[in-house]
């Protein structure tokens, strides 16, 4: 009986000891695995074969102790290629420079690769056993930056252009003038374009510009390689310089903190200057019709302009790629508050076709002192 109890007790103690040893081992490994997350991102998404590729990878490593990585290497080759050696980042974020020659990129392309992955494995001790957390950054390969939109399959923005309606990158406008920016994006692959329109206002654009977000864009790319986006209407109420920028957010390559505008590569900035006073030479007029479409008896109205002696109604039509050509018009005395289209004008209009029209106010010298926007109208008899 005593022997049986002793044996049972021994077995139980052995089990308990094994359990305790297992727990200690487990706790020990948990202490060594203090790196909790690691990611990498780069403003460069394409490596080209026609020049040296100098770029930076931003590593973000979260840990409870310290950080260590033995090497950065291209891993998806037949034999991994080491690019850089040991780093021991001091803080959460560290930037590392890389340089890959065009000849190297060409050799990868010739080997049939279209994508490479640069990986760093982060642990917290240099002598840690195998483990740690991998941070991977993917790069597409292309023979040149210009060809990348056509060669590369992965979604990546290759080229950004920001301009105003006069196709310049710096506009001078009058206060209250309507102004839009236009973003032309050349990209490879397909996906969703995400980014922010941001603006810095006069005063806030000096020294260290303070930007605010005008609008978030999330555009499904329904066409390949090129997209044009208009900005929201831009404020022109205050005198001074505004800075307008578009920041592309690429969630596949960011460290997750996608709010901040990237420093380079995926941001484009332009400026516009608002003058203090309008020229006042041409007053903005409003031309309206009581009904749409326009019929033979549809009353037309416009806002009166002081000092006008003649109102000039103009109707244009675009055909093919040609600029809109003048079709017909009416000259009306300044005492006329409105009219309907005359028989002479109606005779020149084709039913069920679209035209462009506007009203001008002319002074005694024949100068235009008031003008409405050119808007579309359809004529239906």
């Amino acid at each position, binding site marked *: 009986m005593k022997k049986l109890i002793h044996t049972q007790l021994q077995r139980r103690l052995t089990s308990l000891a094994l359990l305790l040893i297992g727990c200690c081992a487990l706790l020990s490994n948990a202490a060594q695995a203090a790196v909790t997350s690691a990611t990498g991102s780069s403003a460069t998404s394409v490596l080209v074969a026609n020049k040296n590729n100098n770029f930076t990878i931003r590593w973000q490593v979260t840990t409870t102790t310290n950080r260590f990585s033995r090497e950065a290497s291209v891993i998806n080759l037949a034999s991994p290629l080491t690019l850089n050696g040991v780093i021991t980042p001091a*803080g959460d974020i560290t930037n590392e420079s890389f340089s890959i020659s065009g000849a190297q990129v060409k050799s990868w392309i010739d080997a049939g690769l279209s994508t490479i992955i640069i990986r760093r494995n982060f642990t917290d001790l240099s002598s840690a056993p195998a483990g740690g957390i991998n941070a991977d950054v993917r790069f597409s390969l292309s023979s040149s930056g*210009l060809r990348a939109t056509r060669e590369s399959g992965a979604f990546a923005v290759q*080229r950004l252009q920001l*301009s105003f309606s006069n196709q310049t990158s710096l506009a001078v406008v009058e206060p209250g003038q309507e102004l839009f920016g236009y973003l032309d994006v050349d990209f490879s692959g397909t996906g969703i374009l995400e980014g922010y329109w941001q603006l810095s206002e006069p005063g806030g654009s000096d020294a260290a510009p303070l930007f605010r977000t005008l609008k978030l864009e999330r555009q499904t790319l329904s066409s390949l390689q090129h997209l044009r986006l208009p900005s929201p209407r831009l404020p022109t109420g205050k005198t001074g310089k505004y800075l307008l920028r578009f920041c592309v957010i690429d969630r596949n390559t960011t460290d997750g903190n996608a709010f901040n505008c990237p420093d380079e590569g995926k941001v484009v900035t332009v400026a516009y200057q608002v003058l203090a006073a309008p020229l006042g030479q041409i007053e903005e007029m409003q031309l309206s019709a009581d009904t749409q479409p326009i019929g033979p008896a549809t009353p037309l109205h416009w806002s009166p302009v002081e000092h006008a002696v003649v109102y000039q109604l103009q109707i244009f039509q675009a055909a093919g790629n040609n600029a*809109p050509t003048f079709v017909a018009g*009416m000259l009306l005395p300044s005492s006329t508050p409105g009219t309907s289209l005359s028989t002479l004008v109606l005779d020149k209009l084709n039913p069920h*076709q679209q035209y462009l029209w506007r009203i001008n106010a002319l002074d005694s010298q024949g100068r235009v002192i008031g003008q409405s926007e050119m808007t579309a109208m359809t004529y239906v008899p």
Partner: protein
Amino acid sequence: MLVKSGRLLTSCGLLLCSLQGHAAETIQLAFQQPLQDKALESIAVEIGGYDVTPFIERTDDGVIVSLDSGLEAGTYQAYVLAFYSDGEIQTLSESQVTIAASGSSTQWNLNSTLSTQVRVAEDDTTDYRSVDHRQSNGALSADSDHRDGNIHTSARLQAVYDNLHQGHYPDSEWQLPEYQAGIAHESDAGTAGVQVGNYAHPNEDLLFSGYQRRGVNLFANNPEQTLKASLFGTASETTNSVEQDLFWPEKQNNQTLGGTLAVSPLTDNPERLTLGASYVDGKGTSTGSGFTVLDDESIYGGHSWGFTLDSIWLNRSLWLHWQKAQSSFDSDGLDYGDGALDDDADKWLVQLNSGPDLPAFGVDQWQLSAQRQRVGEYFYSIANLGLPGDLDTRQLALYANKGGLSLNTEGQHQQNNIEDRADRATLTVRYFGLDLNYTPGVDLQSGPWRYIGSPSYTTYYHVTRNSQPRSDVLLSGLDVDNTQREYSVGASFSHERWSWGLNYALVKTDDRSDPVEQNGFEIYTPVGDTENHLTSLQLSWFPNERLTLSPTLQWNQYKELENDNAYKTLNAGIDGQYAFIPNKLLMHVNYFYGHYDNRYGDPDSLDTQQDNHTGNLQLTWKAVEAKRLKPGMDWFLKGNYGRQDDTIDANDYESWQVRLGFSVYWAGYNEG
């Protein structure tokens, strides 16, 4: 969209050409035919396409037209028509009238502003040591137009000064974003001239798109515009420099030469056939001011040429367009790799629209277009480097409207790898979109419209399918098989004292792609299904002449359903203007808040949030009002505040500054 941009630009050109009028003119038109002996309803007169009937006075044998203004100098066809009660229209007179040019005329205008300000207070945390506390910033916009007989000279200029160079490229105090000087000879035989400065090429086609550069342009056309020619030489890159490339690009690797010719040989009906030819040859990088490119060093170059044919029939209801282009272009960088490679591109378009010769099918107006564009892998033009290539695009679009309802529907099929290369992945995109807009006519004096304003409603459904053969995954490094569906509804209301709009959009992506492995490593990881909700609200309220308030709100939530990641964005703000003393003491104030929230399904990934606050306040005192040739002067006090709080502390900041300064401004134009 590009065609519309081109039309907008030409419309602007039309606008400028139409600014000239003429002083008082009296024209006598005698009847060439006697009036018929029956009830006459009215007599109408047309000169140069304008109905000038309100300005006529009957005489015994004709009419006198007394025009105070309205017609430019030139020769016009004039008609006098009699409208009888029985419906008959008789041409009483058909002649040519000439409105003489009044010797020489000059028009000019100029608008300029110069602001100087000093930073009088600032926060302690931002490093301003490298930034001058004083800032001067200004701009000048001027243009002039002079006509003397057949000679027409014109000039325009926009210049910007900023001692801190903010947003300037190249980095200098002065910028010259736009300037041009031109001289032309205009006669009955046609127009010929030369322009120096910013040159905007009017074409939007395979060779040219949004092409505006500095250089020289020679042009000529006949009066009927049935023969147009131009020769140009420009810098290949955009620039705002005041020192370089003002009239001719200094570097050979930044030069582009080209020319266009358009002929409409059928004089009786010029629109029936228009033939065009274009040529462009140049070298340059793919960058410049306003550009961000990954490679701004490589220089590309080559020459491209093309032919176009346009034909319009059926009273402008049928438009046929065909373009063929070829290029010999080095697209991997000069002195490297392949050298210049030859390739071609072509485009055809058929467009039908309602009119006298085609039925309306019960709607007010409709338009149907079909087009196909095929661009070879190595086809490039130095004047259109962003042209999508190695791509075959087919598109069918229909537009119709009736009353306040308009419908826009479009289908598009795109496929790359047009030569079907075995070493290239083939990507296919199919798109269908349906957009509806409805603007009902309402009585703004009654019903709910009195309070909420005149309504306009929009809704759309878009679906895009992207696919790639599974066998091509290693060629492209990824798998593509997804469908994106977009749904949106919106409403906007416009009132005398306010306008507001509300819009909601949902985008759902169904991702059917699989991971891709290469050499034992996963080189592509599917994102999985996603959902995006976007809500936006915009309001403008102007209760009286003094006050304007404009709040805005945009809320977005993006979810990656596979890994349970969710990204939320909120942008909200309010912008206001108040005139304490109208036209004397004004206040601009705004505040904007942005909240960004990333939450990850993986517990090992850190959730991140960021809050942004920006505020601007400006008080302006109009000390001296600008009047005619007398300059004006404003004093202002500006304050700006910005703060960012981030879960990653390295991105936190708080910054503010107060500036005191004045603006001197002068705007004028000739009045004689």
